[in-house]
């Protein structure tokens, strides 16, 4: 792999006596779509919280393009090009589409009064429409409140915000969890669109069909440890689900048979 865009080494997170994540290593190539899978409590959300800046790790290091970084807040992670799209989407339902896309980074324009800058609503409406067009989503009225949109359209608004931040890395936390079949397909299309723009995607999902549909590689967590790190091509949703469900003895046996180091990568 050339210089990875994101590297995590030895990430560990303890909540009191509980170790939610243990010595997690990961390298993500630019433009890659990586899925992080695992059962409930496997440590997926913990990885996301750390990488998105919502929580600091207890130990370990994050490097972006080889440079060590520390995040004190989600805003820090954003400024380093990591945008996270949360399960609950983190949108303000009653605010307009363009206001959601530009939340926290509004476009301002000068006024005749020195030092006074006001919102450039027209520029924001047009730019928001442009971001959505890049995702092949057309919504006529940018002043529509987000609550009036479908689940897939809301995901698009959340992704448009990531594009606005010029994020190199977009983390999507269970993007299809609350969606029906049709909307899920739209979200899969959205992920393909952002992939096509060279953006690195880290996808957290319970839905193995989604993972097989979009990911290049899958990392499987179990009990806070990485147990698999494999390319997705050739896998079926069923075989992937099987890997998540295997118990610890099977994994250990498998590992001995193949004489791979912990966290080693098969298929390379």
């Amino acid at each position, binding site marked *: 792999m050339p210089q990875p865009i994101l590297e995590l080494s030895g990430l560990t997170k303890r909540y009191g006596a509980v170790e939610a994540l243990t010595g997690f290593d990961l390298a993500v190539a630019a433009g890659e779509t990586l899925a992080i899978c695992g059962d409930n409590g496997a440590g997926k959300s913990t990885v996301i919280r750390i990488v998105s800046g*919502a929580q600091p790790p207890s130990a370990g290091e994050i490097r972006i393009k080889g440079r060590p970084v520390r995040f004190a*807040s*989600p*805003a820090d992670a*954003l400024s380093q090009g990591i945008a*996270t799209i*949360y399960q*609950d*989407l*983190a*949108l*303000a*339902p*009653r*605010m307009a589409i363009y*206001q959601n896309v530009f*939340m*926290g*980074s*509004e476009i*301002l324009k000068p006024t005749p009064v020195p030092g006074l*800058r*006001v*919102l450039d609503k027209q520029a924001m409406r047009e730019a928001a429409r442009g971001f959505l067009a890049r995702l092949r989503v057309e919504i006529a009225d940018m002043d529509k409140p987000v609550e009036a949109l479908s689940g897939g359209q809301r995901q698009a608004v959340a992704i448009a*915000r990531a594009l606005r931040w010029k994020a190199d890395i977009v983390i999507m936390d269970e993007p299809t969890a609350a969606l029906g079949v049709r909307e899920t397909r739209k979200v899969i299309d959205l992920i393909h669109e952002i992939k096509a723009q060279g953006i690195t995607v880290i996808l957290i999902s319970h839905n193995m069909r989604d993972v097989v549909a979009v990911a290049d590689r899958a990392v499987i967590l179990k009990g806070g440890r990485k147990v698999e790190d494999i390319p997705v091509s050739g896998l079926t949703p069923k075989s992937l689900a099987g890997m998540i469900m295997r118990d610890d003895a099977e994994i250990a046996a498998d590992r001995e048979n193949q004489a791979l180091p912990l966290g080693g990568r098969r298929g390379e």
Partner: protein
Amino acid sequence: MTRADAVSRFGTLAAGVAVFLGFAVASEHFLTVANQLTILRQVSFLLILSLGFTFALIAAELDLSFANVASLAGVVTGGLVHFGHSSGLAIAAGLTVALAFGIVNGLLVTRLKIPSLIATLATAAVARGLAFMATDGVSWVGRWDPSFVWLGRGKVLGVPVLVVWSALLAFGAWFAISQTRFGVWLTATGEADEAARLAGIPIRRMKVWGLTLSGLFAGIGAVLLTASLSSAGPTSAGDFLMSGIAAVLLGMTMFTPGKPNMPGTLLGTLLIGVLANGLVLVGAPYYAQDIALGIIILGSVAISASTLTKAAFGL
């Protein structure tokens, strides 16, 4: 816009116009220029206090202290003028006290995590106690410095200066909320605080700002009220609590239904002013106004319940 949309946005306004026309028919004195200016002058204090309350409510916090804080600020300003200090010092002291209460409210809510409903109820009690302590329960009345009294009683080109002040403040409040980044951040904080935080908006600071502006506007209203009455007493602004809340809630039923908004607050205030004035002119008993306010509050809350529940209980 659908018909239902139009009704929800402009229904209250239409009802207000009907009330206005009703009074115009019922009383020959209602529509006179003098009476209309009286209404505008009377609602100016209410408007200024309500604008402040709206700032806090936009950040999804309730400020139940604004009326008592205004009484206290009025006592501070009035007392200093009454005992011969300069008007400038008196005004600065009154505004500082009100501002300080706003900041303390903000810190109680954001640092000690006390729900604003409780925090501001408590600071309201403190403000009331301090106002009684300072005055021994009496009102100060006097022949005060004319330049100070002008602030509340003067005229500019025939228009009462109070109307000018309140128009400027209403414009400033509308501008801040709808045209500046500050306004969007305050709105986002009130609408979806977690989403705002994740987008990098400093939500605690925005909540402190909302409550601080409520305090500051209470202070400005207090200075003007004191100048206009040329007297200050420990409960001089107390009655504005109910009518201020009613005005803002009524405003939330207009334009952007369910959301506190400055144009709504302006019209809500005017409507309540018209109602108060009209009820007097048609000879309604003094308690009719209180009953009307109660009904307005209940009716408005029925429409805007979710926003208010969130502001009151953080749900």
